[in-house]
């Protein structure tokens, strides 16, 4: 028998088919002995399932267990809310206020133009290493743009004398 026909018989057994399908199923049952056997077998299967014993449970005991769980769950939630709830709310609120204040403080510096909060100017003093052209010399030059003072360190210990001709930095 085709699977399609078997499915139709299954639906017909459950009264879950349309009138047209019902007629088709009835015709099948009237003409095909296998179809009749199949539906009887499935019908008997249902009878057997319904006759299977299931343990009898104590509904009252079940409700007591469920109720205990419900109440303990509720008690835990209430305890959490009662003990930690307000404190956590306070801490959270306080944190939020502090965060907002710090943001406002930073923005105020930007917006007000208060000289106390003015950004420092780009450093004008520079320290740089240059190639002096004196063999073995290691030289460091410090130039202060505000005063025009330039300080040159020369490594005398490595044989550089103060009278040695210094190659100007611009030429390097």
């Amino acid at each position, binding site marked *: 028998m085709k*699977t399609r026909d*078997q*499915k139709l018989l*299954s*639906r017909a*057994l*459950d*009264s*879950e088919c349309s009138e047209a399908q019902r007629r088709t199923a009835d015709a099948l049952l009237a003409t095909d002995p296998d179809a009749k056997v*199949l539906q009887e*077998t*499935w019908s008997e*299967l*249902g009878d*057997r*399932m*319904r*006759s*299977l*014993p*299931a*343990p*009898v*449970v104590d*509904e*009252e005991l*079940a*409700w007591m*267990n*469920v*109720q205990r*769980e*419900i109440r303990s*769950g509720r008690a835990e939630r209430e305890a959490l809310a009662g003990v930690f709830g307000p404190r956590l709310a306070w801490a959270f609120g306080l944190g939020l206020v502090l965060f907002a204040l710090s943001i406002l403080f930073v923005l105020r510096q930007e917006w007000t133009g208060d000289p106390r909060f003015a950004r420092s100017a780009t450093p004008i003093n520079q320290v740089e290493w240059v190639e002096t052209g004196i063999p073995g010399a290691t030289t460091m030059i410090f130039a202060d743009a505000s005063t025009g003072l330039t300080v040159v360190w020369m490594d005398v210990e490595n044989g550089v004398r103060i009278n040695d001709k210094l190659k100007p930095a611009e030429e390097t």
Partner: protein
Amino acid sequence: MNNPDDPASNLQETPDVDWLEIDEWACAAQRGDEEAFGRIVRALHQRVFSVVYRVVGNMDDATEIAQLAWIKAWQKLHAYKREARFFTWMYRIAVNTAMDHHRRTRRRREVDLLDEVQLDPEPGRDSPVATHSGPDEEMARRETMEQFQHALGSLSPEHRAVLVLREVEGLSYKEISEVTGTRQGTVMSRLHYARKTMQDLLKGIR
């Protein structure tokens, strides 16, 4: 066969469960009425447990999962929309919890219901076990039932869940699709596959 116009007809045949009342209690529970929720648990726990038990095939797991499902239901009550029946919503939580459990454990559990079953001692309730059979008949009956249980246990939990929801709980395809979160076409295919597999596994067993 069930009345197709009334998808929950099989469920509503149960005399001790008033489904409209369950829905009303669910609304009260949504407003925080714990006692109303308790009434729902008392009314539906056996059904929820039975579904879970048949899906996971283990008494201890089913007990834990069914109770966990109720706790989840209480926690998610705000998400329950009243256009759906409460039991489909609840079954969905229970079946999903059972599936999650199966995915976590990842091992095929041998269905061994017969050793665990504690038959209903109350005389008024239906018992599937014949009480007036001889020892040979009783042994044969137990053997057949064991084979059936093993066949059922060899199905995947998804197929088992669909079969249980249809055959035992009598849910419609639409309700099963709501419970399992799948399309009705998938429900139909799974049911057909489950039936065919069970039929093949039980060939020759009467």
